[in-house]
């Protein structure tokens, strides 16, 4: 036992079943004073925030992953269990547990409260969403509830202004209680018999303390009649996904262009103010375009998370998983994987970040592994450049343009390979481990509150810039270094990159990449192309000594037509479907999985697929006489 001096911050933890509005309460109590990190050694998100009690005590509040029981079944729930039991070496054991419950759905929460009592730490039950319960005519007798449970009970409406005032007022009282002596923990994993007994006890308490209205609220049932309809439900889901895809893909574009132009102008400014040479190149190509290449993703991430958080708060996400479970399940993916995978058509980075909606770590990892195979928008400039230069613009089958068919084929190859890889990953890595069952509560629909959603979006944005920014930025500097050193000798005639380490690597790779039809110029362009796929277009322009980069795509296309054979062009297309040509994606995979291993696995398997695909494409095309 430790007696804390009043000046030291107290440690309170929020615990509760999924959909209890725990995170909304956390947002309401801590506002934007939040920190999101990972627990050491695991990929579970650790959310903490600071708050001040009216009496001036500062409290460090931790939002624990949602759970139905302390009997841990996933890494998320292990974190909750170990944290609550004070088993985490790096974490201070909580002085007070705030168990959050949805007032309209108390059955499972009360069983959890009964289990938490055995932890031997001060405990408080927070009846969240009390406003909704009252509006529906659910009458909860707080005194009976508190007496029967043997736990203080307080009401809250996290999403309402002033909805947490009662709780804040009680916090000082609770803080004093938190300093009191604790009883010893007697918790151990409950047996089925104990679970049954606890649920019977919880049901008995509900019968004593809660009066349900004579006429239950049927809004959710009526909405679900349409939204969960086997056919209409899927159609509505697809329409929703289409709007979301459009939003991430095209609504973000003006903002992204603006950011691009802004950084372009900044780069030009640096170019004109700094004296020519290394410093100028470092600031312009290393720092400014490096930072710019990270920030440019921000609009997509903001829009995507806005949609995800709105749908999550609305209660629709669980329904979407229900509708998609069978379809995604065929490829060994979880029903919730479709939103991350769909977002990956815009960019794999927000897609990989969105895998956080998948609570099972194994399903989440599979989704992260295959997300980069979805054809992201950065591949489009490369595809269009090569297609418009090499594929004749003619109509086939009477109605389809050949160029369009090739483009569609590239997209389809990406999707099919993602499904194939996830099925293979399931077979290779998780053959022994059991298929996790799909069991999910479908919460009642609730109107999302702008304040809570915006706090969530803000936290994501901050996290993206903070975490991915540092790793991506250092990779950009490395790529700049490779493309810039050593400097060209005096009197050199070719472009600078011809004399750099990148060119040296390009030549060194020739024996390896020649079998797939790549010449050394392509190899050189692949290196700055690691920064972002579309950079390869400008890099090809540079190695073929064409000024102007992307704006001059048609001229680059002409140069390619002179220097490449058709099999080479097709091999480059096949390469780009699979190749792990994006340092930012790899960095985000490292961040999100918390391990170099999964980043290496992704890099290796994509590289292998790219090589095999390009090799096959090249040789089939040559054999068919296209060379």
């Amino acid at each position: 036992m430790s007696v804390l001096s009043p000046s030291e911050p107290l440690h309170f933890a929020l615990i509760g079943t999924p959909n209890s509005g725990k995170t909304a309460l956390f947002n309401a109590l801590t506002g934007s004073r939040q920190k999101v990190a990972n627990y050491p050694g695991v990929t579970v998100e650790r959310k903490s925030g600071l708050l001040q009690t009216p009496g001036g005590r500062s409290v460090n509040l931790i939002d624990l992953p949602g759970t139905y029981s302390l009997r841990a079944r996933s890494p998320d729930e292990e974190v909750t269990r170990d944290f609550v039991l004070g088993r985490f070496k790096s974490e201070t054991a909580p002085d007070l547990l705030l168990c959050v419950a949805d007032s309209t759905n108390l059955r499972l929460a009360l069983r959890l409260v009964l289990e938490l009592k055995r932890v031997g730490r001060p405990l408080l039950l927070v009846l969240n969403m009390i406003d909704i319960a009252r509006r529906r005519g659910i009458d909860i007798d707080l005194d009976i509830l508190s007496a029967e449970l043997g736990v203080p009970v307080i009401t809250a409406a996290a999403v309402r202004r002033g909805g947490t005032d009662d709780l804040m007022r009680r916090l000082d009282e609770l803080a004093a209680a938190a300093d009191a002596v604790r009883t010893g923990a007697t918790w151990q994993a409950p047996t089925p018999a104990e679970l049954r007994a606890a649920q019977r006890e919880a049901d008995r308490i509900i019968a004593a303390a809660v009066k349900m209205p004579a006429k239950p609220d049927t809004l959710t049932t009526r909405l679900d009649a349409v939204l969960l309809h086997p056919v209409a439900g899927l159609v509505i889901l697809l329409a929703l996904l289409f709007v979301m895809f459009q939003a991430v893909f095209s609504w973000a574009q003006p903002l992204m262009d603006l950011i691009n132009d802004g950084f372009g102008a900044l780069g030009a400014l640096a170019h004109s103010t700094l004296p020519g040479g290394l410093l100028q190149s470092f600031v312009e190509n290393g720092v400014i375009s490096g930072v710019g290449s990270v920030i440019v993703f921000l609009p997509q991430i903001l829009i995507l998370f806005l949609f995800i958080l709105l749908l999550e708060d609305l209660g629709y996400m669980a329904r979407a998983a229900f509708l998609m479970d069978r379809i995604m399940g065929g490829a060994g993916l979880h029903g919730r994987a479709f939103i991350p995978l769909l977002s990956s058509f815009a960019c794999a980075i927000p897609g990989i970040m969105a895998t956080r909606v998948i609570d099972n770590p194994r399903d989440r990892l599979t989704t992260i592994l295959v997300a980069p195979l979805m054809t992201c928008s950065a591949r489009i400039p490369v595809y269009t450049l090569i297609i418009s230069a090499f594929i004749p613009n003619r109509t086939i089958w009477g109605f389809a343009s050949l160029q369009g068919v090739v483009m569609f084929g590239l997209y389809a190859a990406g999707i099919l390979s993602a499904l194939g890889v996830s099925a293979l990953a399931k077979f290779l890595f998780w053959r022994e481990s059991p298929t996790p069952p799909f069991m999910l509560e479908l919460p009642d629909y609730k109107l999302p509150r702008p304040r809570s959603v915006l706090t969530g979006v803000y936290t994501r944005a901050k996290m993206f810039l903070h975490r991915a920014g540092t790793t991506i930025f250092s990779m950009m500097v490395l790529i700049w270094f490779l493309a810039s050193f050593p400097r060209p000798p005096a009197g050199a005639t070719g472009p600078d990159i011809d004399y750099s380490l990148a060119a040296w690597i390009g030549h060194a790779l020739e024996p390896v990449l020649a079998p797939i039809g790549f010449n050394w110029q392509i190899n050189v362009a692949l290196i700055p192309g690691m920064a972002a796929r579309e950079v390869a277009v400008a890099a090809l322009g540079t190695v073929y000594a064409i000024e102007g980069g992307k704006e001059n795509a048609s001229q680059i296309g002409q140069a390619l037509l002179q220097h490449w054979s058709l099999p080479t062009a097709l091999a480059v297309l096949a390469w780009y479907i699979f190749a792990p040509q994006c340092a930012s994606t790899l960095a985000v995979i490292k961040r999100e999985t918390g391990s170099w291993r999964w980043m290496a696995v992704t890099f290796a398997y994509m590289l292998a697929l790219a090589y095999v695909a390009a090799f096959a494409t090249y040789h089939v095309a040559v054999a068919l006489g296209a060379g």
Partner: protein
Amino acid sequence: MRIPEPAMSEVIQMALGLAQRGFRGRITAIAVQPGTSDLPTGELERRLLELGFTEGASVEILHEGLFGRDPIAVRINDATVAIRRREAMAILVS
């Protein structure tokens, strides 16, 4: 746990996993047969209990998926839970 034969029990008992949409009844037992789940022994039973599938609770199948009428959305007392038919085979109802 042993499942009584339908003929031996007074009320007809069936697995929730076989029930049609619109079915209403009460849970009589949670009985995991071998092969119902890939989870370790006893794990599925505890998970079902933790989601509120306890003996005596009222259940109704509200919705089902398009393919193979799977998964199903089950109203259990005052909450709704989505579950695959495979796991619902362990929930006996009457």
